[in-house]
């Protein structure tokens, strides 16, 4: 039983440790570039969300303050928001018809 507990703890630590690593500036820059590209695509589809813009701004602000953990997390969130808005834009190309009064 003790051995099993030890093993479980080791496995949990193995999984948790890499994600607990602090984000670097390079991590942030890569995440921000990906988020920015997705946001540009959403804007070109005329489906940009205000939250994408504000989250991108928050990411940049955190990076400017040297908090790359927060900057990285915000950039990832902005990318997810932008991708969701792109999905919305594409799915609505047909889906809007379901709402139409006929």
């Amino acid at each position: 039983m003790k051995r099993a507990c030890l093993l479980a703890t080791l496995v949990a630590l193995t999984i948790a440790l890499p994600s607990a690593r602090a984000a670097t500036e390079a991590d942030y820059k890569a995440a921000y570039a990906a988020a920015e590209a997705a946001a540009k695509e959403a804007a070109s589809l005329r489906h940009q969300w205000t939250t994408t813009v504000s989250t991108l701004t928050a990411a940049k602000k955190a990076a400017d303050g040297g908090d790359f953990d927060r900057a990285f997390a915000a950039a990832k969130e902005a990318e997810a928001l932008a991708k969701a808005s792109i999905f919305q834009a594409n799915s609505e190309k047909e889906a809007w018809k379901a709402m139409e009064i006929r």
Partner: protein
Amino acid sequence: MKTPFSLLLGSVGAALVACALTSPRVVAADKVDPVADAKAFQNFFFQKFPNVKREDFVNGPYSMNEDMKRQWQEKEEFPPYEFALDAGKEMFATPFKNGKTYADCFPNGGIGIRQNYPYFDTKEGKVITLELALNRCREANGEAPYSYVKDEMASLTAYMAYTSRGKPMDIKIPDDPRALEAFENGKRYFYTRRGQMNFSCASCHVQSPGERIRAETLAPALGILNAMPIYRSEWSGMGTTSRRFVTCNSQTRAVPLEPQSDEYRDVEYFLSYVANGLPISGPGARP
């Protein structure tokens, strides 16, 4: 071998005939038919709210709630848009630096014509709204354009709407494929979900008129532009149709488009056309 080949030929022939017979129906279903759309749109609201008088839909949330209606009727004795109306009347009559006035830019001297806007300009191939026409008038006479969302533009359109009060909305769609496309684009914009809230204009103003969203009672989409421009207590001031679209987008957490963008002009065209026959009630007042 001959029999199977003739069978195959027969099958292909039958398939072609079937396609030829069915394809016109598919085209017909996708055909842009503004008259049918307007009829369906109006009937939807008339049937959903059988106790609301048809001409009352232009009064937005007040048509949905008796208590609100009574409060609004009291308020109409000293309406909050009165200052804008007076300012608009004065601005309308004041000549530009070149001596001309707004009246020189519009049919009938700009009086009693609100119900004809927006219209489709067949030369330009685009929808022209009243706000756009007013700024074009200014620029053609050497004046700087006004902001599309409030202040002077709201005052001018308030005065022009007032001179059309009671006149039925009368939007025309010329026999021009570009006009039909503009109508269809406006319709698509109206029903398309956008923003993080995943709302379309229809989510509030077709599916939920009369219901509350936070403290607000939602207005029906039918006749929603007939009351424009409006004094909104929420804005503590006047706002134009452009302002209304921009605000709606922001509220769904969508980045608004530029005022008088093609999309906004087209959705104004669609919403105005489907309200044909309902009276102009602008300028209006809303909570």
